[in-house]
């Protein structure tokens, strides 16, 4: 179905959180303040790599109005954090390893005072050699970040006889692909308000993608029981993976407990740039061979990722890349080696697409280059090698069966945009011969969920509250994707409630169940599965209670808008408030259903292998200005097969918005570093797409059909859209100019031509 407001009909709903957003009345967590609060600031390292010889905070502490100046020795618990492996120092003790490393934090009565206090802290550093190239980092003579060496993580995947495969190949393509240090650039920088309670509890109002993970980590840092910490984490002004790890929370929490006063932190953009996560820059060397019929006979990939100094989810990202450089194709033999290397560069970590963006840019580049050597249509080459519905996944693991791979192939092949390739008028215009047009495409198979071997819990709770509202409580976060809207829509469509009957409770560890993280394109799938599990029990209990209250058989009753209705004619018999009141009057148990399960996984022991996949095919038309070297995207077509569309507005927004990130990845975005220092410090030089770059059309075909008997329902779409556009642009540029792009963002100098104007 072509997805837009018209085709969605009544399913296109106004978001429950929309009014607050368009009126400015919604308070984000960085908008909160309290009258007696202090301003917190963090002192970060001026050096990418150095020993700390001395830290002296006494002058800062002596300043009137400065209430705390904390360093490593003031951390009561574990002076480290990190979701997968806690190796990221809250405060560095004796060594800094990147420009975002924290050495101290202050709490002061005003922002100006906090700034002056930071300047009054004396730190003596002894600079160390800077490791700023991941490939050099793993050579024997490289300076070490850690005594164990600079190799952070390795992975591999191999099958078949790779050398025999290359020997039998009719054509071989070898290419090295490079991808940029892309920044999430959430418009709301990290921050929050940290409030110590009189009861000794601490409340952290600060964005995250998994409140319970933050609570556990804060508990470890503060040496304070989890029950004494409350994390309030939504709404969020964008995250895209970037607020998944702790950021300002340890400092806010420590300062609040040290001073006994509420503490607010809100990073400046520069502080967000220097300390925040980025997409792992990767260099991917590939060698791929085809036989004369276009069958992939051998595929070798070597990936080097720039980890920066600490783990974050870097191992998981590399595992994801290992899986996705293989992707949706069949091969005679595969030989993949991947390595992630510690450097003193910026901190890499989780980011929408999670290593797939880099992997698929390289893989699709290989397919396009092979098609050109074969003289074959690039889409036809993909068809000849495409996985079939029953095939195992990229790592040979059993996966949930869908026809998605074939469906999106067909959709793109039949699209008007792709059909325009053969139009002779396409390539250039006679009035402006420096403008060249081309059309390219790319294929995406993207895994969702955390994968084998990683705890991936899910669940939620439904309750009829005393006031008659149906409360849906989930431990997920709203960072813009429309999670509240999708949950509301499912409750309306699966249960028959009216929107006004429903209260959605999320983002507060005191009141929600742990539903696992809001990451890895998993939340909508898991909410759908939770509601499906709870529909029978919860609906049954409501009808049973209504049956008692009304004196009618339960099977004559139905859930509906506003209350219990007659199954026969839909007449309202009892509203939910009356039902709740009758329960209270008879001292009956409140009606409440909870479910807890895990994201489905593949029955293999390969860590990180995925079970559920979404598929996309992307076609794009570009116009290359060979005078300026600039590329303009003029039209996009996205075919997406990810099961039923839960929330049309949200789905469309995820594909449009995701592809905008891919556009930036392809054309303009790079947080440039030089010797471990950021050259790109703010949005004047870090260029995310504006409305001008996004003026071309975007068409989304949402393919909902799943095999009969499918139990898994909607697949993830949160990341999928951010992947395929970049390789499609690279091919479109080739079609327009005959020039191959192997490095992103595309350097305009590559595409500039000398023109003679006669």
């Amino acid at each position, binding site marked *: 179905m072509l997805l837009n*407001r018209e085709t969605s009909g009544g399913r296109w709903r106004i978001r429950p959180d929309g009014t607050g957003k368009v009126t*400015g009345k919604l308070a984000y967590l960085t908008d909160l303040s309290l009258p007696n609060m202090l301003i917190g600031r963090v002192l970060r390292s001026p050096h990418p790599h150095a020993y700390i010889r001395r830290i002296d905070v006494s002058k800062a502490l002596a300043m009137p109005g400065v209430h705390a100046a904390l360093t490593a020795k003031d951390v009561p618990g574990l002076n480290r954090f990190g979701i997968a492996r806690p190796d990221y120092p809250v405060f560095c003790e004796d060594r800094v390893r990147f420009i975002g490393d924290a050495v101290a934090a202050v709490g002061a009565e005003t922002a100006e005072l906090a700034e002056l206090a930071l300047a009054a802290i004396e730190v003596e550093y002894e600079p160390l050699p800077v490791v700023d190239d991941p490939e050099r980092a793993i050579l024997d003579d490289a300076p070490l970040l850690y005594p164990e060496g600079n190799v952070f993580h390795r992975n591999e995947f191999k099958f078949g006889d790779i050398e025999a495969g290359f020997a039998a190949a009719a054509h071989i393509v070898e290419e090295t692909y490079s991808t940029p240090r892309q920044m999430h650039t959430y418009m*709301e*920088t990290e921050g929050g308000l940290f409030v110590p309670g009189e009861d000794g509890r601490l409340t952290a109002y600060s964005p995250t993608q998994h409140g319970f993970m933050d609570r556990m980590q804060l508990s470890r840092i503060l040496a304070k029981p989890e029950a004494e910490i409350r994390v309030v984490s939504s*709404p969020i002004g964008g995250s895209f993976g970037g607020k998944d790890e702790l950021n300002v929370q340890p400092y806010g929490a420590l300062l609040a407990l040290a001073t006994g006063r509420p503490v607010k932190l809100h990073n400046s*953009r520069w502080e967000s740039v220097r300390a925040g996560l980025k997409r792992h820059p990767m260099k991917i060397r590939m060698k791929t061979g085809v036989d004369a019929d276009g069958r992939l006979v051998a595929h070798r990939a070597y990936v080097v990722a720039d980890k920066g100094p600490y783990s974050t989810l870097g191992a998981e990202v590399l595992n994801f890349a290992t899986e996705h450089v293989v992707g949706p194709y069949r091969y005679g033999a595969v030989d993949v080696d991947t390595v992630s290397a510690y450097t003193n560069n910026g901190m890499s970590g989780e980011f929408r697409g999670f290593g797939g963006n880099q992997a698929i840019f390289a893989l699709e580049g290989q397919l396009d280059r092979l098609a050109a050597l074969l003289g074959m249509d690039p889409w036809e080459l993909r068809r000849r090698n495409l996985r079939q519905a029953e095939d195992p996944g990229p790592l040979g693991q059993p996966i949930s069966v869908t026809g998605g791979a074939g469906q999106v192939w067909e959709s793109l092949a039949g699209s008007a945009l792709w059909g325009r390739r053969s139009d002779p008028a396409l390539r250039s215009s006679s009035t402006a011969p420096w403008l060249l047009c081309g059309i390219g495409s790319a294929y995406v198979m993207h895994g969702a969920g955390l994968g084998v071997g990683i705890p991936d819990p899910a669940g939620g709770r439904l309750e009829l509250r005393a006031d008659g509202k149906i409360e849906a409580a989930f431990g997920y976060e709203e960072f813009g994707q429309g999670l509240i809207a999708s949950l509301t829509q499912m409750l309306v469509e699966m249960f028959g409630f009216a929107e006004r009957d429903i209260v959605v409770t999320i983002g507060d560890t005191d009141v929600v169940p742990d539903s696992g993280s809001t990451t890895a394109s998993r939340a909508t799938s898991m909410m759908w599965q939770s509601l499906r599990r709870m529909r029978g029990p919860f609906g049954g209990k409501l009808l049973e209670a209504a049956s008692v209250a009304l004196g009618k058989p339960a099977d004559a009753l139905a859930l509906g808008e506003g209350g219990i209705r007659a199954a026969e004619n839909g007449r309202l018999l009892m509203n939910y408030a009356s039902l709740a009141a009758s329960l209270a009057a008879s001292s009956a148990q409140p009606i409440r259903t909870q479910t807890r399960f895990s994201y489905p996984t593949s029955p293999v022991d390969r860590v990180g292998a995925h079970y559920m996949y979404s598929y996309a095919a992307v076609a794009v038309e570009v116009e290359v200005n060979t005078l300026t070297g600039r590329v303009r995207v003029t039209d996009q077509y996205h075919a997406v097969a990810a099961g039923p569309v839960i929330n049309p507005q949200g789905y469309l927004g995820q594909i*449009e918005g995701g592809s905008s990130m891919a556009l930036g990845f392809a054309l303009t975005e790079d947080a440039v570093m030089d010797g471990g220092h950021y050259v790109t410090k703010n949005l004047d030089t870090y260029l*995310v797409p*504006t409305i001008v770059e996004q003026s071309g059309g975007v068409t989304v075909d949402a393919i909902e059909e799943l095999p009969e008997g499918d139990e898994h329902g909607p697949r993830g779409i949160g990341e999928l859209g951010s992947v395929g556009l970049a390789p499609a642009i690279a091919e479109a540029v080739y079609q327009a100019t005959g020039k191959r792009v192997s490095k992103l963002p595309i350097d305009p100098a590559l595409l500039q031509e000398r023109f003679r104007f006669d």
Partner: protein
Amino acid sequence: MIEKTYLSAGRSAPLRIRVNGRETELDVPPSKRLLHVLRDDLGLTGTKRSCEIGRCGACMVLVDGEPVNSCLAMAYQCQSKSVTTIEGLSEDGMTLVQQCFLDEGGYQCGYCTPGMIVSVTALLANDPSPADTDIQEALSGNLCRCTGYGGILRAVKKAIELKREQTG
């Protein structure tokens, strides 16, 4: 690195501005940014802080009807001027532009939305039927990281269409 945006040199001085129709008198340093006056002194947090160098538009407000990045305007520059923030676009309820953003889904996380809506409001006040290139020009200083601008463009076009219908 000193954060100049935080530092407000000099002593406080009286500032008279009209904010969302209300005459307001404050004592603030003359170089304090309007963004911080609005957010910290007046509690008008609908105006958002993001890049603080005038590149993202999250802090856009109207000063005497013209769109201004409030992170770039100092208090003294706003002396005796009339400032309208997102909170002041409509007394109660919503303007047509706000309603169109809501209907078309012209937002996701919503953090850029107040600034975006202020810019659209200024555009349509000056020109009720802007060409596509005028829309692009007017909104090129407002970054949205979530939507890819699809929903925003649909909202703007809807607002133009409805305005045209209203005025016949």
